[in-house]
């Protein structure tokens, strides 16, 4: 898996900040973070030079989740799912996870309905973007913001 050098710089700076906070004998390394720019780059890789228009696809995400380890999401596209008119693929991206890609679903007329669901991890409160590719080659997007809270009593000492 390729990691752009910019992320390494991210970690160095973040690590320095963490050490500065005096976190004692435990080596605290701040988690890796992608940027909205990296998310755009990941989207570019999938979409190529095509335009992405907001609409057609709907991303369902809870507005608030108690734990970022298992966030349910559903993506739906209104489509007849015929040979002539169907959804080819659905891609999901995040802007603040260590890595922007989440999942790519490949559908087709055999799907019958363009509706997929899964559970994802979210490192922090952020925006999630879903992009669908239609059989006519067009790309459509939807975004949703979500707040991720954290439990008070965690297992680790930190």
């Amino acid at each position: 898996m390729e990691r752009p050098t910019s992320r390494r710089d991210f970690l160095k700076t973040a690590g320095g900040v963490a050490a500065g906070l005096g976190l004692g004998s435990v080596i605290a390394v701040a988690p890796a973070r992608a940027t909205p720019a990296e998310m755009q780059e990941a989207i570019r890789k999938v979409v190529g030079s095509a335009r992405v228009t907001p609409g057609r696809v709907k991303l369902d995400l809870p507005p608030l989740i108690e734990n970022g380890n298992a966030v349910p999401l559903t993506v739906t596209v209104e489509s007849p799912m015929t040979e002539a008119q169907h959804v080819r693929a659905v891609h999901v991206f995040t802007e603040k996870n260590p890595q922007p890609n989440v999942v790519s679903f490949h559908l087709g007329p055999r799907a019958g309905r363009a509706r997929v669901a899964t559970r994802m991890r979210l490192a922090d409160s952020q925006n999630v973007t879903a992009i669908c590719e239609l059989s006519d080659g067009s790309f459509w997007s939807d975004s949703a913001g979500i707040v991720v809270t954290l439990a008070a009593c965690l297992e680790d000492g930190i």
Partner: protein
Amino acid sequence: MRFVGAVAALAIAASAVAGEIPRADRRSGYEFMSRETRAMQDDDTANPGMLWVLEGGTLWEKKTGAAGRACADCHGDPRASMKGVAARYPAFDAAIGRPISLEQRINRCRIDRQQASALAYESRELLALTAFVARQSRGLPIDVTIDARTHPFLDAGRATFHRRQGQLNLACAQCHDDNWGRQLAGNVIPQAHPTGYPLYRLEWQSLGSLQRRLRNCLVGIRAEPYDYGANELVDLELYLLWRARGMTMDAPAVRP
């Protein structure tokens, strides 16, 4: 649940004074969760805890130990033989003269009847078997037995629940009896009724036992956590289950 003697009556009176949540106000942690997390628990085809129940079902049939016996060989159909079992644990074990947890009971069977070695606490197999047995009590009310034999251990568990511990100098009761329903660090404080153990905790990304959760709590208040299987933890389990008496079991639950 049978109460014997004046000591028991005194204990009941004491607990009523100590701020125990009245029966009518008792709510499962399920009710404090978001709609989405509840949906994860409600659907057996989406509940990750069911993966352990599935594995437990396989282990139930597997011959093991020097005796070459499977759980099924003695206990037959688990839906009948194990129904209500988890709802009664921790239960008194005459052999060692104190209550034992369901995990300890499973290990006792392994050692005594299957001539197999005990499974490590929080091991995949022990969690699977415990989840499988607990699943057979789903929908039944919690019904631990408190009598002359178990009362001293209930008292010890209650004392632990009310004792201030750790660097934060907090007692379980302060959050879970006095401040349930309020927010702590972004999440709602539940009443701490262990109706759904072993459960899939999103934080763990795995199924885990009640003792794992209790140790998490102790670490949370910066106290030295008791070892798995320690008498203090089993006594506390007994108290918590008694405190939740009558509530419906819903293992394997999902919690944040």
